[in-house]
C-alpha cells in the first residue's frame, strides 16, 4: 500500500521537473495541474483503501535513501492514511481549481515547478517512518511553499511574508531536530520503531512535549507562534493559500499527533493542561484577529489559527482523558479533533477558492473595496455562503458536527480526578463557545461585506462569474460540507481505526444507530441527527413557501430601498468591514489589541470632513518578537565593530587568545 503512494509522490516530483522542462507556459500549466489532479486523486484512492480497506495491518517499506545505515523508512498506518486522505483530497481539489485559476497567474514560471513539489512534500511527511525522512519531507514542504509564497516577489510585503515564514519554519524544524535528538538518544535510533521502544525520563518526555508544541505548533499556527501564518498564507496564489491553510496546517497537526500520541507513550496529566490552554487561547485570539481584518484572505488565514485552536482543544482533552485512563472519552475527544481536521480542510479550502475567484475577477482582496458580488458572481457567492455557514458551525453542515462532539467530550470531563483540569476544562469550554459565536459574527461580516450590499468600487462593478473548473472544485467541496454534515456517522466510523490505534478505544459504531444519527456515548446522554434536522428544515421551509404562495399573495414589486425614510444613493454609507466589527472591537479590542479610537469632529459650520481613526497593536508581536528582533540587531551592530579594527588590534586578539590558553594550561591541574 505504501509503495504506490510513494510512487505517486515520485510522479509529482517528476511533474515538477517537467514543469521546468516545458517552455510553453500554457502547456506547462495544463500538464502540471492535470498531472497533479490525476496523481492526487490516485493518492486519495490509495489512502481511502488503506483507511477503510480490508487489511488494517500497516504496510511499511525501507528505501536505501536518507541516513545510510538506517535507510528511508515509510509506513502507512491508519493515522497516516487518514491524513494522507486529507492531503490528497485538498490537493486534488486545489489542482482542479488551479486548472482554471492558473490562467490568471501573472508569473506562472514561479508557481508551476514548486506546486507539485509542495504536494509531494506534504504527502511524504505523513508517510515517513523515521526522524530523518520525516524532517526532510517536513522541511521540503516548508521550502517549496516558501518558494510559492515568494511567487509574487515584486510586492515588498510578500517578500517580508516569505522571510518571516522561512525563519519561523526553520525555527520550528530546529526545535523538532532537538526533539528527535532527545527521542533518538546519543547513538541515534532514528527509526520511529526504535523511538517507540525506547523509554524516556519524565523530564525528557516533558521537554519533548514542549519542543513538539514549538515545532509542530509553529507550523500549525498556535498562538503565539502564529505570526507568520496570516502573512504567508495570503501572499501565495489562492490555490496554494488553500493548500497551506487547509492542508499544510493539518500536516503539522499530524506531526503533533504522531509524536505525542504515538511516539511519546502514555502522557502525564499536566501536559493536557498546556495543550488545552494553548488551544483555547489560540481559538479566541485567532477569531478576534480575524474580526479586525478587512483583507479577505488574511481574515481567512486568521480563521485557520482559530480552527487550529479548536483542534488542539480536542487533542488536549484526548490527552487528559488518556492520562487518566478514560479510553472511551479519549476516543471521543480525539475523534472530534480529527473530524474537525477533515472538516476544516474542506471548508477552509473552499473559502480560499472563493477568495481566489473574487481576487481574479475583481483584482481586490480588500473587502472595503468590494460588495454586491452576489449579483455578479451568484454561483461563487452561493458556495462561499455554504463555506461560511459551515465554518460558523451552523447545523446541518459539517463544522457543527465536530464542535458538537468537542462539547460532548468536554461534558465528560468532570470525572477527571485532577483538580487543575477540572478548573481549566470548563474555562476552555467557554472559550470554545465564545470563539464559535465570534466566528459566526466574523463570517457574517466576511460574506456580507464582500458579496452583499452595493458595490463600493469600479473594480467590483466589473466582476464576472469565474470559470467552470474553479466552480467545479468549489461545488465539490460545498457538497462535501453538506454530506459530512448530514451523514457524520460514516466519517466517524472511518476514523475508528485511527483512534483505536492511538488511544486503544473507539467511539461506538455509528452505522448501527437507527435513522443514521450519531451517538457519542449513549443515546440517553446525547445524540444528533444531521439528516433529520436537514430534512425538517427543508420540509418546513418548503411547507411555508408553498402555503404562502398558494394561500396568500405571491406578488412582488421592486422599489428603492426604504432605509427608514432617508435612503442615500452613495454606497459609501453602507456598513464596511471595520464598522461592522466596531461593536465587537469595543468589547474585546480595547483589551486584546489596545484598540484606541479617536474622532476629530469639526465644530458645526466648519466645512471639513470629520476624521475617525483606530489604532491597534499586535501585542503578541510587541511582547515576543520585537524584542528578539531588537536584540539580534543590537548584537549585530555591536559585533560589527570588530570588522573595522586595525591589523594590530586583530593581532592583539590572537595574542590575547594565546595568552589565555597558556594561562589555562598554567592553572590546569
Amino acid at each position, binding site marked *: 500500500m505504501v509503495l504506490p503512494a510513494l510512487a505517486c509522490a515520485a510522479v509529482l516530483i517528476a511533474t515538477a521537473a517537467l514543469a521546468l522542462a516545458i517552455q510553453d507556459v500554457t502547456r506547462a500549466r495544463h500538464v502540471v495541474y492535470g498531472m497533479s489532479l490525476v496523481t492526487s486523486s490516485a493518492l486519495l484512492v490509495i489512502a481511502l483503501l488503506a483507511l477503510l480497506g480490508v487489511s488494517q495491518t500497516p504496510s511499511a517499506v525501507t528505501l536505501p535513501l536518507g541516513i545510510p545505515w538506517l535507510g528511508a523508512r515509510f509506513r502507512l498506518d491508519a493515522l497516516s492514511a487518514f491524513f494522507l486522505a486529507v492531503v490528497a483530497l485538498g490537493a486534488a481539489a486545489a489542482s482542479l481549481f488551479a486548472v482554471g485559476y492558473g490562467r490568471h497567474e501573472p508569473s506562472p514560471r514561479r508557481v508551476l515547478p514548486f506546486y507539485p513539489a509542495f504536494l509531494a512534500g506534504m504527502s511524504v511527511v505523513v508517510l515517513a517512518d523515521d526522524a530523518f525522512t520525516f524532517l526532510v519531507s517536513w522541511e521540503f514542504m516548508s521550502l517549496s511553499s516558501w518558494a510559492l509564497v515568494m511567487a509574487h516577489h515584486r510586492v515588498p510585503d510578500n517578500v517580508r511574508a516569505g522571510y518571516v515564514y522561512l525563519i519561523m519554519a526553520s525555527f520550528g524544524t530546529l526545535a523538532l531536530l532537538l526533539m528527535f535528538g532527545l527521542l533518538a538518544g546519543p547513538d541515534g535510533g532514528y527509526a520511529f520503531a526504535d523511538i517507540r521502544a525506547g523509554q524516556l525520563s519524565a523530564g525528557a518526555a516533558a521537554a519533548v512535549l514542549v519542543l513538539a508544541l514549538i515545532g509542530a505548533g509553529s507550523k500549525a499556527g498556535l498562538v503565539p507562534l502564529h505570526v507568520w501564518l496570516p502573512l504567508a498564507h495570503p501572499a501565495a496564489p489562492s490555490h496554494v493559500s488553500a493548500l497551506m491553510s487547509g492542508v499544510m496546517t493539518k500536516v503539522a497537526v499530524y506531526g503533533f499527533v504522531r509524536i505525542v500520541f504515538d511516539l511519546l507513550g502514555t502522557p502525564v496529566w499536566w501536559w493536557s493542561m498546556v495543550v488545552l490552554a494553548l488551544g483555547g487561547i489560540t481559538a479566541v485570539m485567532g477569531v478576534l484577529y480575524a474580526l479586525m481584518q478587512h483583507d479577505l484572505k488574511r481574515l481567512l488565514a486568521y480563521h485557520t489559527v482559530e480552527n487550529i485552536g479548536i483542534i488542539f482543544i480536542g487533542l488536549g482533552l484526548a490527552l487528559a482523558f488518556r492520562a487518566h485512563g478514560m479510553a472511551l472519552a479519549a476516543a471521543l475527544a480525539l475523534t472530534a479533533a480529527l473530524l474537525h481536521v477533515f472538516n476544516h480542510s474542506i471548508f477552509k479550502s473552499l473559502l480560499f477558492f472563493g477568495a481566489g475567484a473574487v481576487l481574479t475577477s475583481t483584482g481586490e482582496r480588500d473587502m472595503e473595496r468590494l460588495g454586491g458580488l452576489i449579483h455578479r458572481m451568484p454561483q461563487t457567492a452561493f458556495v462561499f455562503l455554504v463555506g461560511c455557514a459551515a465554518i460558523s458551525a451552523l447545523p446541518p453542515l459539517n463544522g457543527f458536527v465536530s464542535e458538537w462532539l468537542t462539547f460532548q467530550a468536554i461534558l465528560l470531563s468532570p470525572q477527571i480526578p485532577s483538580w487543575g483540569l477540572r478548573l481549566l476544562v470548563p474555562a476552555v469550554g467557554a472559550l470554545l463557545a465564545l470563539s464559535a459565536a465570534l466566528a459566526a459574527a466574523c463570517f457574517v461580516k466576511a460574506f456580507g461585506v464582500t458579496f452583499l450590499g452595493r458595490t463600493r468600487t469600479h473594480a467590483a462593478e466589473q466582476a464576472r462569474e469565474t470559470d467552470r473548473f474553479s466552480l467545479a472544485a468549489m461545488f465539490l467541496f460545498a457538497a462535501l460540507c453538506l454530506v459530512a454534515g448530514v451523514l457524520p456517522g460514516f466519517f466517524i466510523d472511518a476514523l475508528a481505526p485511527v483512534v483505536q490505534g492511538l488511544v486503544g478505544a473507539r467511539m461506538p459504531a455509528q452505522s448501527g444507530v437507527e435513522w443514521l444519527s450519531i451517538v457519542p456515548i449513549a443515546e440517553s446522554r446525547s445524540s444528533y441527527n444531521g439528516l433529520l*434536522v436537514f430534512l425538517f428544515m427543508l420540509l418546513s421551509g418548503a411547507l411555508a413557501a408553498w402555503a404562502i404562495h398558494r394561500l396568500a399573495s405571491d406578488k412582488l414589486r421592486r422599489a428603492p430601498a426604504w432605509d427608514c425614510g432617508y435612503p442615500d444613493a452613495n454606497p459609501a454609507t453602507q456598513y464596511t468591514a471595520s464598522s461592522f466589527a466596531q461593536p465587537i472591537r469595543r468589547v474585546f479590542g480595547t483589551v486584546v489589541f489596545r484598540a484606541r479610537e479617536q474622532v476629530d469632529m469639526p465644530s458645526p459650520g466648519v466645512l471639513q470632513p470629520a476624521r475617525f481613526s483606530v489604532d491597534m497593536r499586535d501585542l503578541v508581536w510587541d511582547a515576543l518578537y520585537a524584542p528578539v528582533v531588537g536584540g539580534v540587531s543590537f548584537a549585530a551592530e555591536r559585533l560589527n565593530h570588530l570588522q573595522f579594527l586595525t591589523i594590530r588590534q586583530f593581532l592583539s586578539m590572537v595574542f590575547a587568545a594565546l595568552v589565555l590558553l597558556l594561562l589555562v594550561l598554567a592553572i590546569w591541574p
Partner: protein
Amino acid sequence: MAVIFELVVQGLQMLLVLLMAPLLTGFVRKVKARLLLRQGPPLSQPYRDLARLMRKEVVLAENASWLFRVSPYLIFAATWVAASLVPTFGTRLLFSWSADFIVIIALLGSARFFLALAGLDVGTSFGGIGSSREMMIASLAEPAMIMIVFTVALVAGSTQLSTMAAFLVSSEVGLRVSLGLALFALIMVAIAENARIPVDNPATHLELTMVHEAMVLEYSGRHLALIELSASMKLLLYVSLIACLFVPWGLVPSGGAVALLAIGVLAYIAKLAAGGFLLALFETSIAKMRVFRVPEFLGAALMLGLLATLLLFVSRSL
C-alpha cells in the same frame, strides 16, 4: 402504541408552537398595556397583523439579492424546527433524540446568521447597524447559553432536553446553587435574544436604539410576516425552555394517558401565561439600556453560567 402516541405529541407540539406563538406575543403586549393603564390591542391582534402582511404584496429593494428573499423561509424553518423540539407539555417527543439542547441553540444561531446577512444585503446603513449589533450581542449570548447547557447537562447527565426534563421532574434533584445561577443566566440571555427591554425595544423605531427592527427594516409583506412569526416563536421557545427546565412539573411522561395529556397542555398554557406576565412586568419596570451596556449585561450572564459550570466541576452536589 407508544410510537403513535409520541408521533401525536410531536405533531401536536409543532402545531401548538406555531399557533400559540402570536398569542403569547399578543398577551405580553396586552399585559404591558394594562400595566401602563392603557387599553392595549386585543389578544388576536398579532394574528390579524400576520394575515394582513401575508396578503400584501412584497416591496423589494432594487438591489436585494436572492439571499434576501430566501432568508425569511430559512429563518422560519430553523426557528420552527428548534421550537418544535423543545418539550412543551410532554417530554417524550418522537424526534427529540435527533437534536439536543446544543443543536437547538445552533439552530437559533443559524436563523440569526441569515437574519444578519439579510440585514446587510440591501446595503443600507440601518441594516448594517442592526446586524453588527445583533452579532455582537450573539457573540456573548451564545457562549452564555452553552454554559447554561453545560450546567444543566452536568446535573442531568445528558444534553437531551427531554431526558433533562424527565430527570428534573424526578425528585432527586433538590435545590442546587448551580441551577439557580443557570436559571438567572438563562433569563438574562432570553431577554437579550428576544430583543426585549432593556436590551432592545421591539416596539420602537427610534433608529439609533434598535437592533432587531433595524435588520428587518427592508422587509415587507409575507417576508416580514414570516420573520415576525419566527420572532414570536423564538420568544415562545425561550419561555417553554425555561418552563421545561426549571418548572418541569406537569410535563407528560412517555406513554402517558390522554388525560395526562390534557393536564400537560393546561399546565403548559399556565406556564406560558405566567412567563408572559412576568416578562411584561419586568419590561414595564425597567428602562432600556445603552447598546454598549449590553455587553456588560451579557458578560454577567456568561460569568454566571461559567460559575455554575465550575461549581459542578468542583463538586457534583452543588
